[in-house]
């Protein structure tokens, strides 16, 4: 059957699972252009499948139904590497070396009277707080770790919510229904750019260090040579095919480029996760 031909490390056809999520801007458009590009680069048939749920992607890879996965946040990669030993091969960065974009921030409504992190720490008991969604890297993991380091646990807030996505988080702050919220900077940036949020209606009170964006990762039993080939196909895209680059670039608000990635890039995030109750990747 089909599965045998796929199960060796060098399948005839490569299937890319692409997660559609807000967490990264790696959403793929104009799939025909990309299919062309990767077919040419990898010398075999390529299929792109767009998926909306991270666990579906992980299980598909476990059952050898896809070879390559992209578009996930870093946290999903961490889970995948733990559960099925997936390997990161490439990730994105701002082309001009500016690391402003992929990071996490805490925002408030200017009317809330909170001006700085100190205000938040002091008044925690009177403040309502919201994460973006449970497994968000930039909207939960990183800011929560930061707050933990500053000695604030979620229980210290008056109330803590988890939103459904970054958009909902942003709007609950602008409408003044939540005092402080964690959000991916790129989302805020995007809304400011398209003018749906006015600059005066949110105040950023904390920005994180740059975070490693979610990687493209592959199934671990692929032929190492093939893994390399895929990695190169990504890192060379700007040079090799500007059209394909444009398609990959579509949802970024800045110009980006692909760089090679290894698991070590995500070690610090993994550590953070393991120190947060409920997000640990170790068995509890």
């Amino acid at each position, binding site marked *: *059957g*089909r*599965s045998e031909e796929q199960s060796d490390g060098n399948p005839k056809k490569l299937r890319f699972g692409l997660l559609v999520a807000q967490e990264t801007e790696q959403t793929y458009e104009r799939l025909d252009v990309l299919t062309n590009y990767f077919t040419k680069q990898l010398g075999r048939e390529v299929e792109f499948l767009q998926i909306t749920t*991270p*666990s579906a992607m*992980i*299980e598909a890879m*476990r*059952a*050898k139904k896809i070879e390559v996965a992209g578009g996930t946040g870093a946290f*999903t990669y961490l*889970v995948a590497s*733990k*559960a099925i030993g997936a390997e990161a091969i490439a990730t994105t960065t701002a082309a001009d070396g500016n690391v402003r974009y992929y990071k996490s921030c805490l925002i408030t409504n200017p009317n809330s009277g909170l001006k700085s992190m100190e205000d938040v720490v002091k008044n925690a008991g009177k403040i*309502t707080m*919201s*994460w973006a*969604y*449970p*497994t968000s890297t930039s909207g939960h993991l990183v800011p929560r770790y930061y707050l933990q380091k500053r000695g604030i646990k*979620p229980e210290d807030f008056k*109330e*803590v*919510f*988890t*939103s*459904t996505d970054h*958009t*909902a988080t942003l*709007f*609950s702050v602008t*409408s003044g*229904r*939540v005092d402080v919220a964690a959000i991916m900077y790129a989302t805020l940036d995007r809304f400011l750019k398209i003018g749906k949020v006015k600059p005066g209606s949110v105040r950023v009170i904390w920005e994180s260090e740059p975070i490693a964006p979610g990687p493209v990762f592959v199934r671990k039993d692929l032929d190492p040579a093939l893994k390399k080939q895929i990695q190169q196909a990504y890192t060379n895209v700007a040079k090799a095919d500007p059209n394909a680059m444009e398609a990959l670039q579509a949802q970024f608000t800045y110009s980006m480029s692909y760089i090679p990635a290894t698991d070590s890039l995500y070690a610090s995030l993994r550590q953070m996760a393991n120190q947060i109750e*409920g*997000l640990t*990747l170790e068995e509890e």
Partner: protein
Amino acid sequence: MNVSLDKQYLPSERYKRHAAYLAVLAVVIIGLCSYFKFEPLLFISDFHYMADLVVEMTPPNFEVLWRKEKIFASILQTLSMAFLGTLAGGAVAMGLAFLAARNTTPHPAVGAVIRTLLAIERVIPSLVILLLFLIAVGLGPFAGMLSLAVGTIGMFGKLFANAIEGAEKEPIDAVHSVGASKLQVIRYAVIPQVLPSFIANLFYAFDINLRAAIGLGVFGGAGVGYEISMAMRLVRYRDALALICFTILLVFAVEKLSDWLRSRALGQDLLK
């Protein structure tokens, strides 16, 4: 015998006709299946992957239920959300259903307008409705309850209207014939007939809302919904399954309650 069956009514003709319809349908289905490249054989050849996953998911790890002490409080909140959403949405849906159903609508135009509005309401994605209420009242169970209520209106407005349209005509005729007004006809001929299906549908709405509320429980930060979603995303299927079992129990309990109430309203007339 001077009367004979028209050819088109002969059973053998009817059979041929039905066979032809079925054949066309089968061809369409098979055509579509092959167009979309269905491979049912995969169920057999790749069954082991599924089996592996089932093994990985079982047995449910019931420990999670008592490890998280907040879970039971959150269940109460989930139930409240579903209950209020059903109550508010169901009440509105019921009212609209009488306006929408063809046999009770005050005017055909009103019926058409209401049905259109219900359809529009149904296609607005729940995400948009949720965002609307998130912005309006902030994160939290109230926003969840409101969006459940709105969702209930669209779907159950239609189901209630279907039930009303299915009511028997004869008793309605009879009540009309004493000069009763439309409202009286509804009260005395329609409601007694549709009561069982209303009860069933209301509980069905509660059942749907309960599950949706569990999903919305993500809000709380510690509810069943949050835990299920966390467990799924962290690939801790056993924990998730334990929580899901709990949900199933809840839903089944609701189902039993509905059964009991409905059988009382259905009333068995005949001596068995």
